[in-house]
């Protein structure tokens, strides 16, 4: 193996988030691949290695070709014989495949690599793949499917889990309804001028607080929708990137986070936890953040702009604390102070409206966050450009269920 090389993002392509019944996932993947190649000033034959997000809900649509996304997109792009891998790390897949692309280039295995994810998750609560409500009669396998057990026998949807964590937070640190509504209100202001967002309007505190409970204490407008979306990111060596793009972004660090034994969180798709002394909740997320700070040599004070996974207002608060190393409860004050306003904040957070404004397109979500960071750091976000001008280091973190996490730090390289 050669020594590791510095790797930079040279091209991005993003399909808008929303509902696109007229297109299949592969078409959306091709569109954003073509856009990313154009942005990188490259052609498809320049790509030497590729990593794809494997679509998760094949019981609903897409089937096996969408699980084996790489070769099915290659049928449309044109088969060039390059290595392709398909990855499912739940909602953290986008950054997981970007890591694969980065490692392919860093290791010298390829000079240029692409990460592509296309997803059609629009349509209500995520649910188990097995749909028979009485499986004991003919499917003993259900006994080992904890996702099925938690859904059918405890009624735990994803928002139910988030709501339970939130209620405990309200009990422990006093998070209020006002703070929850503010998380949605403030991020929605970033979505207005983001052409890739699905909900491009400002939600008022009043309408958020008047929206119905889905899982008390979380309301409809405090939980992200599910969407269709696709994005692609091309990486190459830093030296090569400078030849192809005036504004390459160095991938300073990128990693995947998984849990630590003894985490007190009953993670989604599981039915119990065995908390151990000294192990904090959301360990997969803390593990990912610790690694990217360690690899990059940076610390929270060095970060100029953040994309965090605001799948719900609860997520917004706990991930702000996770990323900045704050104590539980401190995110509430920071949010209310305006410091983290998506456009005018001294530390812009979710500048394009975040997951709340996009709705989650599961495996593509992480790449969308990276695309948003790249646009802002290059100063190419148009009317949605943040007011802050010093954007040297940007951090993105994605939340995935069942203990899947990923995070990266990008740095200006021009």
């Amino acid at each position, binding site marked *: 193996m050669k020594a590791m090389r510095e790797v930079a993002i040279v091209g991005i392509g993003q399909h808008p988030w929303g509902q696109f019944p007229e297109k299949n996932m592969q078409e959306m993947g091709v569109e954003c691949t073509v856009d990313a190649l154009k942005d990188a000033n490259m052609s498809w034959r320049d790509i030497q290695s590729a990593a794809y997000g494997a679509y998760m809900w094949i019981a609903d649509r897409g089937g096996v070709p969408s699980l084996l996304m790489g070769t099915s997109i290659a049928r449309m792009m044109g088969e060039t014989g390059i290595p392709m891998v398909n990855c499912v790390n739940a909602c953290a897949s986008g950054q997981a495949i970007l890591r694969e692309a980065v490692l392919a280039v860093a290791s010298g295995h390829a000079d240029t690599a692409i990460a592509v994810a296309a997803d059609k998750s629009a349509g209500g609560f995520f*649910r188990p793949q097995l749909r028979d409500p009485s499986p004991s009669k003919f499917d003993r396998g259900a006994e080992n499917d904890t996702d099925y057990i938690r859904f059918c*026998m405890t*009624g735990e949807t994803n928002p*139910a889990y988030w709501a339970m964590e939130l209620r405990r937070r309200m009990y422990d640190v006093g998070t209020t309804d006002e703070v929850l509504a503010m998380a949605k209100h403030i991020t929605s202001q970033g979505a207005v001028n983001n052409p890739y967002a699905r909900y491009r309007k400002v939600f008022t505190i009043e309408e958020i607080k008047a929206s119905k409970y889905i*899982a008390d204490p979380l309301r409809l407008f405090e939980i992200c929708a599910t969407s269709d979306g696709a994005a692609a990111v091309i990486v190459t060596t830093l030296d090569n990137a400078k030849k192809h793009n005036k504004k390459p972004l160095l991938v300073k660090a990128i990693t995947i986070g998984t849990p630590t*034994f003894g985490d007190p969180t009953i993670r989604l798709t599981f039915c*119990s936890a065995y908390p151990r002394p000294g192990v904090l909740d959301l360990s997969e997320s803390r593990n990912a953040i610790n690694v990217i700070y360690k690899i990059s040599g940076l610390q929270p004070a060095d970060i100029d702009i953040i994309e965090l996974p605001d799948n719900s207002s609860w997520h917004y608060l706990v991930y702000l604390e996770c990323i900045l190393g704050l104590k539980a409860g401190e995110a509430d004050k920071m949010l209310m102070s305006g410091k983290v306003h998506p456009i005018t904040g001294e530390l812009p957070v979710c500048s394009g409206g975040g997951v709340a404004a996009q709705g989650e397109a599961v495996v593509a979500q992480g790449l969308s966050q990276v695309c948003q960071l790249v646009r802002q750091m290059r100063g190419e976000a148009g009317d949605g450009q943040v007011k802050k001008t010093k954007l040297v280091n940007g951090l993105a973190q994605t939340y995935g269920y069942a203990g899947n996490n990923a995070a990266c730090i990008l740095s200006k390289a021009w």
Partner: protein
Amino acid sequence: MAKKQVPIIEGLFTWPSDRPQLLASKCKKCGAYFFPKVPYCGNPDCAKDKANMEVVPLSNTGTMYTFTIHTAQPALPFRMEPFTPYGVAMVDVAEGMRVLGMTTTTEGLKIGQQVQMTVGKLYEDADNEYITWMWKPVEK
């Protein structure tokens, strides 16, 4: 004649029983508990030896760690007939586990309250009532 009460999935709790208990796996080496049952201890420092694992019934009382009241109706395979808003809770039991489960009521739920495990029906057909485990607040 009363219908037979059948767990939606068998083997998760002792049944039939007047005092049902969740069935967990316990590691004889490190004392860790897992629910539902698992073939191997999930402690990274324990040998992956099935002989180390024993099935044990969990305490059927616990303390409410947190809960939600779910008002939206999930799609199949979740089945509750007729549908009503329901509680979902995380409960701490004496063995040191935190366990998920529905609650028997949406009224009067409080963090820190004592709860007892029982069973409740979610739906029925001509022959059977289909049940799951539920946490019931107890007076103190």
